[in-house]
């Protein structure tokens, strides 16, 4: 289209204004706050790198980062399950559309709804323990969300439960776009279901899995606030504090904006590393590195 060369800017301007106010300005201010806003009262150097020193030596921040790291363990589980479930759906068993609809429902439900409902199921006097006791396995009953040993694992279960449908849909969309010939020729060669899965399906899914894996890693760092806020509020005994929740508490409960901002910058840097990884993986995939 032949047009005035300023015209594209005119069309994009409103979007850029919004993005400037909501993304650019806050990211710059965050760096500024982390360096210049006085931090906690018990902290010797009020400004400069003091906030970073405070954050990096705060045991609670270490707990938070370790909890995010533990959440990363959800990702391989999600990847494995979405490969298997999408491969089964791709065989088109009778009623596969209905299965697909049902498997995706957790992704549609809101985190508060899911969090509270599972909260009641996992209560010490809740439904899960009631079933365990009735079936003679009472020794397995635990305080799933109320004990530091289990709370994080229970949250992980709920996260996997909720995010799995997304992976299944992604993988299925990818499989549908793969030429049927690959599967047909493997079948003609007499390959069994697991052999096809390993030698055909998984290699063909590599791009979808790489995408899903990185998206979920980033989610485990920067989108888990709602789960913690709804199910445990960081407890019991801070065992489920994640980085987002740590920042939220420092800024909105303890009112130490400088420290919260410094933690925010740390979180932002970790996410940036993951994005760099994503770009690198995409290049490798484009270059056929996984073939």
């Amino acid at each position, binding site marked *: *289209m032949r*047009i005035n060369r300023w015209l*594209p800017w005119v*069309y*994009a301007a*409103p*979007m850029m204004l*919004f*993005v400037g*106010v*909501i*993304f650019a*300005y*806050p*990211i710059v*201010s*965050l760096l500024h*706050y982390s360096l210049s806003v006085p931090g906690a009262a018990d902290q010797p150097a009020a400004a400069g790198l003091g906030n970073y020193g405070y954050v990096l030596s705060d045991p609670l921040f270490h707990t938070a980062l370790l909890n995010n790291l533990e959440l990363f363990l959800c990702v391989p589980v999600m990847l494995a399950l979405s490969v*298997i*479930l999408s491969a089964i759906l791709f065989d088109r*068993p009778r009623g596969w559309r209905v*299965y697909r*609809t*049902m*498997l*995706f*429902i957790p992704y*549609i*439900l*809101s*985190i*508060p*709804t*899911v969090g*509270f*409902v*599972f909260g*009641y*199921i996992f209560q010490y006097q*809740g*439904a899960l323990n009631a*079933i365990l006791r009735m079936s003679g396995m009472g020794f397995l009953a635990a305080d799933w969300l109320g004990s530091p040993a289990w709370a994080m694992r229970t949250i992980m279960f709920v996260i996997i*439960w909720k995010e799995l449908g997304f992976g299944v*849909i*992604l993988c299925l*969309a990818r499989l549908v776009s793969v030429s049927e010939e690959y599967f047909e020729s493997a079948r003609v060669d007499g390959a069994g279901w697991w052999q096809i899965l390993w030698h055909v399906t998984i290699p063909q899914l590599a791009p*979808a899995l790489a995408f899903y894996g990185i998206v979920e890693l980033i989610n485990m760092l*920067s*989108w888990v*606030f*709602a789960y913690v806020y709804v199910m445990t509020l960081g407890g019991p005994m801070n065992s489920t504090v994640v980085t*987002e929740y740590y920042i*939220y508490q420092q800024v909105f409960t303890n009112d130490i*904006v400088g420290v*919260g901002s410094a933690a*925010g*910058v740390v979180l*932002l840097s970790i*996410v940036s590393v*993951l994005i760099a990884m994503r770009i690198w993986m995409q290049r490798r995939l484009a270059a056929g590195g996984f073939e």
Partner: protein
Amino acid sequence: MVSSDVALMDEVMESRRTRRRAVGRVSRHAVMIAFSALALLPIYFMTVNAFKARSEYTSNKLGLPLHPTLKTMTSALADGGLYHWMLNSLLVTVASVAISTALAALAAYPISLMRWRMGPLVLGGLIALLVVPPIVLIIPIFEMVVSIDQLNTFHTVIIIYSGIMLPFSTFLLTSFFSTISPTLIEAARIDGASVWRVFIEVVLPLSASALMTVAIVQSLWVWNEVLIAVVFLQDQGLRTLMVGLTIFNSRYRVDVPVVMAGMLWATVPMVTLYLVGQRFFIRGLTAGAVKG
């Protein structure tokens, strides 16, 4: 080997294969049924308990209601909060999705169809912003909003939601717009249509289902959002449904069936939207992955 032996062997192999296939079919359905049941567990739990009285829940937590009652569902609604929070959520969702989709469409137009030299750079920037954690943005935005005295207003939250969704919606619309044939646009231009008229009369009508997809995916996100709603709408009367549910939950903690009834009411709108517009959900959520 005589030919009859070959035939026999074939037959054996064939029957073994069909038996294996039958086993495969059964186990496939077993896996699917198990995972589907697990996926529906919270909806099941909400539904069966929303029709029980408080006394029944103590002894029967997971079974179907033995003495079903509608009173639990009506008393959850009679609280009034739910209704009010839903209206607030509806207002915030509709307004921010409308703004965000409109601005995204305007921006995606030059990026995808105008041979804009800066287009790819702008797009790259937006893709990088997709992964910025909201909590990081909220600290400075909160300070800013407080300093200009705009905390606890719907328009503040609507602007924040619209802005946060823009990188994703612009990116998605750009990839949808790119599939429109350039010759079609050239033809309209040669017929004397202005750039704006091409946008209104060619690009938008051709992208109706793409716009629908983007709007639905965004609605899902805004409707279910928690953090921004918690921080920026602290006034009782302004709570959105998601924050309202946390209040509802603590208000009725001792009466689990009422809590479940409330959650069920709150779940109905999104699940209905999903069942009706499933293909838009799936398209919108997978489009990002296919295009990379």
